[in-house]
């Protein structure tokens, strides 16, 4: 569903690595820099500085993990979807998110890290995923609001990544973004229909917006002044637009949609600023945000343990497939001999 738009160190407490000037190979480095400066694409077979490779592996794998963990909050409502049409839409959406995870693991593999290694990082708790998925989905309206706001925020984050300097990631993002905008429209449409329903349904939508709005604003990451990795990311063409700019774009795009929907965004400071030609908005609770990123949110343990359990419980199935393939190869060799 979604990438952290900002850099979070994987291991708890570890600061993002300071960008090092590469002494690896001055000629290659110059060629690499020139290509980046010319807005060219870096492909898997191309030379690249180790720090660039590492940053990308971290970002792409965090993104992949987010897609996979992101299947759980909405998966929570598949069995209870209130109509067969909505059930089908939701299954297809959650399936898309799994598909995004697959492309992204493949993109990360082009950088020399296997899916198993990446999963090991997730399961051991070393690798991060988007913290938005550490909040519970309490009602059916959460499904619509996640589509509208969380996928909506993801699109804001990811559209610039379609121009990312690393070719396989950029190409994966083009496909992912198309599907995310579909999710966003579907989520919004589901809410529009609910708002034509009963008072209880309208209250359900408002309650879900109240719970998700601030979390979605935080998805864009800390204010630019506090984002140590952004500058290097910008230099490398991995990040294109700053956290605050993306957040502002998101707010500006969402306020009119909220009006059409007929709900109130839970921020008394939200108002149009004629001078800036943007909406002003209130203070995000960064302490709560970082606390959740660090593992202490309402669902961190449940999300991660569920991923670990699926993987552990599925070991015998994967083993069976491997053993069967091995036997088939042996049989083929015997026949050939």
């Amino acid at each position, binding site marked *: 569903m979604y990438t952290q738009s900002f850099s979070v160190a994987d291991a708890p407490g570890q600061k993002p690595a300071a960008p090092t000037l590469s002494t690896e190979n001055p000629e290659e480095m110059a060629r690499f820099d020139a290509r980046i400066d010319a807005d060219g694409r870096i492909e898997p077979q191309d030379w690249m500085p180790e720090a660039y490779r590492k940053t990308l592996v971290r970002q792409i794998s965090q993104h992949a993990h987010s897609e*996979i963990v992101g*299947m*759980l909050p909405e*998966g929570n409502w*598949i*069995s*209870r*979807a*209130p*109509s*067969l*049409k*909505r*059930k*089908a839409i939701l*299954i*297809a959406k*959650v*399936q898309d998110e*799994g*598909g995004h*995870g*697959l492309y992204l*693991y493949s993109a990360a593999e082009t950088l020399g890290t296997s899916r198993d290694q990446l999963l090991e990082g997730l399961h051991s708790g070393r690798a991060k995923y988007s913290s938005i998925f550490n909040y519970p989905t309490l009602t*059916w309206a959460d499904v619509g609001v996640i589509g509208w706001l969380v996928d909506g925020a993801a699109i804001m984050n990811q559209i610039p990544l379609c121009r990312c300097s690393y070719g396989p990631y950029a190409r994966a993002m083009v496909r992912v973004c198309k599907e995310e905008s579909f999710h966003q429209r579907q989520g919004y449409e*589901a809410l529009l*229909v*609910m708002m*034509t*329903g*009963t008072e*209880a*349904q309208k209250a359900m939508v408002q309650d879900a917006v109240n719970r998700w709005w601030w979390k979605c604003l935080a998805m864009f990451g800390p204010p630019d002044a506090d984002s140590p990795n952004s500058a290097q990311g910008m230099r490398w063409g991995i990040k294109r637009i700053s956290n605050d700019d993306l957040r502002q774009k998101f707010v500006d795009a969402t306020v009119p949609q909220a009006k059409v929907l007929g709900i109130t965004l839970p921020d008394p400071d939200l108002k149009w600023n004629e001078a800036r030609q943007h909406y002003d908005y209130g203070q995000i609770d960064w302490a709560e945000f970082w606390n959740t990123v660090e593992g202490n949110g309402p669902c961190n343990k449940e999300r991660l343990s*569920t991923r670990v*359990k*699926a993987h552990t*419980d*599925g*070991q*015998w*199935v*994967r*083993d*069976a*497939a*491997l*053993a*069967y393939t091995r*036997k088939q190869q042996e049989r083929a060799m015997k026949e050939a001999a």
Partner: protein
Amino acid sequence: MSTPIDYLLHLADNAVVLGQRNAEWCGHGPILEEDLALANVSLDLIGQARLLYQRVAELKGGDASEDQLAYFRDAHEFRNYTLLELPHHGPLVGYAAADRDYATTIVRNFLYSALMVLVWDGLQNSADAGLAAIAAKSVKETSYHLHHARDWLVRMGDGTDESHARVQAAVDHLMPYTEEFWTTSPAEGAAVAAHVAVDVWALRPAWDAMVNDALAEATLSRPNFHGYVTEGKVGLHSEHLGFLLAEMQSLARAHPDGRW
């Protein structure tokens, strides 16, 4: 020519109940590719159910709708095979909890889709043109489900000792439920008489051949049947359907006037 409603409901309820079960793996599969594959199976089944319920709603008229049929009927009104409502684990009472077992899921999908490729194939020639059209779409989907389940059945059977033991246990557990395929319910009898349905009994040799062939390739044995023949398709279910429906229908029933 229109088909007896109870026969359409039998086909629709089969699809919705197994669709609901398959979707339970979403986010919990043994490997990401399988989450996606089972989500596909589930989507196809729910799609089939929707078309069939829509047909029933047309025939019934009034305020009947696909969702009224799926969400506002009680367990005894459901006409699905008992096999399809069972949880993804071995034999336990309705309110018992246990881990999902992928072998159970695969064996069930295999046994059911092996039947349904034959049924849908036959129904393409139904005198009910609407049903024939649904069958034409469904037979393609079901043949994909059959391939998927059969491939895994063979991998598990001829994989490791553990996978062999697990999949054999699932075959032993589920095979008796397939006896229900071969009894004729009043709805099936009426539909066959009206030339809108296929006589499932006549499909038995082809189904047996498919099943025996796959079990042999998977190095699995087929248990001899003796005992109780389930009767889900006439509305007499296991303890499990009540729980499945309680979950599936809870939100829709909490807001009977809701718009979704």
